[in-house]
């Protein structure tokens, strides 16, 4: 586990985020909360279709925004959807937008502080915007290190739930530079 300069704790592992236990997990989606991807399908299967349908009924949301819903059948209590793609986006990767990636992370953390939850699971969000693993790690971890991100004291811990060992290696290297 790493302790970031702003006091936030960071951990990382390789596993399917649909099986990950945290107070909340983040999943990337489109602005109309209706993205067909392997990750979305796996989470929907565990959470239950009605959980997704209820969240979609509350959309659309702006790109960069984050919307919380209950986790349904997931181990996590909450799901936080982050809109990284425009609607009906048929394929990846999206446009590389550093500001957008920063916004989704800040807004995910904001939803956590409003819910008062302690720990958050987050995938490699940057790759859905076309960033390499290293670029994504730098942007995500620099954003998570900001003092403003940890002002509310919630969440206390962010867990990066990665898809493979290569992601883990890269994120681990970048995390060393950001931690105390």
């Amino acid at each position, binding site marked *: 586990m790493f302790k970031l300069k702003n006091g936030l704790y960071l951990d990382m592992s390789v596993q399917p985020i649909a099986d990950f236990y945290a107070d909340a997990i983040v999943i990337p989606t489109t602005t109309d909360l209706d993205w067909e991807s392997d990750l979305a399908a796996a989470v929907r299967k565990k959470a239950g279709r009605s959980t997704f349908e209820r969240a979609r009924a509350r959309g659309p949301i702006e790109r960069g*925004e*984050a*919307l919380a819903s*209950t986790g349904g059948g997931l181990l996590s*209590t*909450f799901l936080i959807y982050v809109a990284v793609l425009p609607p009906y986006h048929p394929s990846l990767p999206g446009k590389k937008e550093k500001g957008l990636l920063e916004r989704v992370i800040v807004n995910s953390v904001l939803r956590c502080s*409003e*819910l008062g939850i302690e720990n958050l699971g987050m995938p490699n969000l940057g790759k859905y915007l076309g960033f390499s693993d290293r670029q994504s790690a730098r942007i995500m971890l620099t954003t998570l290190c900001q003092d403003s991100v940890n002002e509310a004291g919630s969440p206390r811990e962010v867990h990066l739930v990665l898809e493979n060992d290569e992601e883990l290696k890269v994120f681990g290297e970048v995390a060393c530079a950001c931690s105390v």
Partner: protein
Amino acid sequence: MNADLEILAALAASVEQGNAPKTKALVQQSLAKPIGPWEIVNQGIMPALRIIGEQLKDGTISLPEVMISVGAVKAALSILGPLLVQKSASGRGVVVIGTVAGDVHSLGKDLVAMMLEGSGFKVIDLGVDVDSSRFVEAAITHKARIVALSGLLTTSRMSMRETIQAFDSAGLRGKTSILVGGGAVDRQTAAALAADAYGEDASVASDIALGLVKQE
């Protein structure tokens, strides 16, 4: 329905749905109209909270769903909070608030604390699972005019009774009014506990607190 009422109705719906980003956007739009911050709270947020409160009592809403709606309220109050404090007279006195011993529910308490701050009270929030001695100590230290006891569980009534008795024993009842609220109590129970006032929900907290300090 005029435009102001429409936007406030949309805001209430957004809070009820727990849509935090939409709630913030509607609050911004309301302020830009301009609709006053207290009107936004009373007509755009409190109606949603009453519905959620009823659903919670009926068991037709889960606690995570309540937390999401309260998250939307917090999102709204992140914008409205400073404006509510600005528009209130300051120096109404100190309120000590907490959830009583054995109970860790804080949602209602947090809302009441915010409403009281918005009304110009200085609020000392002791958190959750607060025993009677901490309430007494805080009331003495901060010269509290009001102590607000919150609880959701029915067992919290016993903790409330114990706390009220502690204030009696410390000779503080003349100086400090005790307000009780939360799912643990109703008007009848509050009277049986010999509380000075009962708050049905956060929306009446300010009025009750202002009424208590005017009586002095």
